[in-house]
């Protein structure tokens, strides 16, 4: 889960560090403005999440086990910025205390593991759906959808970061094909795990989990589901369409040279292997174009939605 320094080149790592540092600075300002947020609570919950990551659950159906990251869980108690802040502190300490994740790669790890879950998936998907008295079904769907979205975004980010660093041996599209289904499943697991914990705890301390003060409405529910659906669909569409190759092409143009990659020989051999096992057959350019358009339309709608939400939140606080 944690990226080591070997996985990212210096410019990418530093770029991610800068973005993460900016987000952290913003979160601190937001925390100071929120009176409800208690410093001891963030400290102790950080320690809690750190410890909780050390105990594994069995993933049913497979022989393996996993653990949660806890982004959505933290945010459900501390809010988006509080959750991000706290999870970042955990990531930094994991690097310092256990060399879990590289020092330069801290920014990447903060973005991949904390930013997408706390700052995107939580406010857009989980928060609108969760109510203190909401049904178990709603709790589970909110948690699972939010976590799937968060992990998919994280997977895309990791792929981009390693590809742009020239460390990935696979072309972008094929790597996504590999990463996304895995993270989809991981998202479900963490979604279920998070929901189970919230279910257990809210019986004893319902006030612990923040909920929207506004009335729950069908429109808000649909919006949340739509955003989740969009993120999930767009992620997989990214693989199926010409977008990844287009992305590589545009990156190459921007960098004015070849995308840094170990070798074309390896790409070819990896491609050969994957083509034999690929579920998605070679794309149709026409279809790709349609999907590309759909993504553009969705993106526009999402941006308008986000700006409405930001304005709505400001008027609430």
């Amino acid at each position, binding site marked *: 889960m944690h990226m080591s320094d070997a996985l990212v080149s210096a410019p990418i790592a530093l770029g991610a560090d800068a973005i993460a540092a900016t987000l952290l600075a913003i979160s601190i300002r937001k925390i100071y403005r929120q009176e409800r947020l208690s410093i001891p609570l963030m*400290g102790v919950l950080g320690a809690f999440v750190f410890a909780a990551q050390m105990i594994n659950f069995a993933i049913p159906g497979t022989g393996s086990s996993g653990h949660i990251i806890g982004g959505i869980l933290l945010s459900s108690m501390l809010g988006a910025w509080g959750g991000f802040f706290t999870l970042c502190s955990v990531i930094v300490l994991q690097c310092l205390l256990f060399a879990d994740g590289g020092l330069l790669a801290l920014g990447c790890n903060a973005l991949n593991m904390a930013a997408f879950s706390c700052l995107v998936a939580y406010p857009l998907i989980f928060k609108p759906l969760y109510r203190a008295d909401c049904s178990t079904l709603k709790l589970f769907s909110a948690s699972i959808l939010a976590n799937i979205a968060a992990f998919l975004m994280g997977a895309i980010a990791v792929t981009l970061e390693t590809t742009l660093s020239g460390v990935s041996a696979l072309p972008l599209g094929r790597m996504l094909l590999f990463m996304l289904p895995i993270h989809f499943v991981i998202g479900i697991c963490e979604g279920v795990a998070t929901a189970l914990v919230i279910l257990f705890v809210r019986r004893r301390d319902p006030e612990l989990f923040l909920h929207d003060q506004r009335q729950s409405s069908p429109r808000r529910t649909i919006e949340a589901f739509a955003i989740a659906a969009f993120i999930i669909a767009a992620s997989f569409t990214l693989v199926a369409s010409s977008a990844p190759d287009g992305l590589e092409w545009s990156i190459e143009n921007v960098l004015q040279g070849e995308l840094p990659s170990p070798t074309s020989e390896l790409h070819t051999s990896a491609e050969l292997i994957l083509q034999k096992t690929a579920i998605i057959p070679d794309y149709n350019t026409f279809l790709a174009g349609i999907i590309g358009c759909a993504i553009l339309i969705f993106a526009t709608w999402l941006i308008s939605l986000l700006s409405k939400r930001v304005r709505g939140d400001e008027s609430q606080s």
Partner: protein
Amino acid sequence: MSRSLDKILFELEQVAQGHSSGLASTIDPRARTLVAIIFLFGLLSISLNDIGRIAIWALPLIFLALLCRVNYLSLLSRSLIVLPFVALIGLFDILHEREVVATLLGIRITQGWIMALAIMLRAIISVQAILLLILSTGINPICRALQGLGLPSLFVLQLMMVYRFLIIMIRQLQELMRAADSRSAAKSHYPLSLWAHLVGELLLRAVGRAKVINQAMKARLWDGRVPIFNDKSCWRWRETIFMILSITGIALMRYINLK
């Protein structure tokens, strides 16, 4: 984390304060942290073809470990933990860079193997550098140093609090796990429902503790703002000399032409 919780607790308890003694212990944590960061930058910027140069970077760590009375071998063994992940990346290099660059004892060594070895060496040396910094300086002094270097106070306080209560949380987790294990076979992982009970119980205790800490802070007239730390560290000639020597040494290691 597959290591047992006991081992983790032991490692955590070791790093509260620094262990260094002698001359090394007098150097301000800020200088040490800066040098460590510069060291890492230098190390990670070395091209993977230059394996000889990479290997040299272990030497100052061995020397510093001796100076700080830290066991280098334990640093080495702890740093090996990153190898599995890094080896995967090295594997790609082995597969693709087939150009033979040397022959040793009749075995043809390809560029790929050199790069793979370089990547692994670079990874474990960088981990050793971080571990050495933490063991010789201590996590709390390092957090203070980071604050002195510009990290916001609230985040520094958060880091120190997470560290402070992590040991307590792990102990409580152990208690909960032992209670669960004594009623069933001890496992390394739990079925989801039991897992959720354990984590949920831990969460409730954490929240309860946070409430009492809040009360304890208010009882001592805390007004909710970040406490001001008394900065006892000072930057003397010693630190400046240390910085100059270190940066010079690092630059030499990075750029000097060995041939």
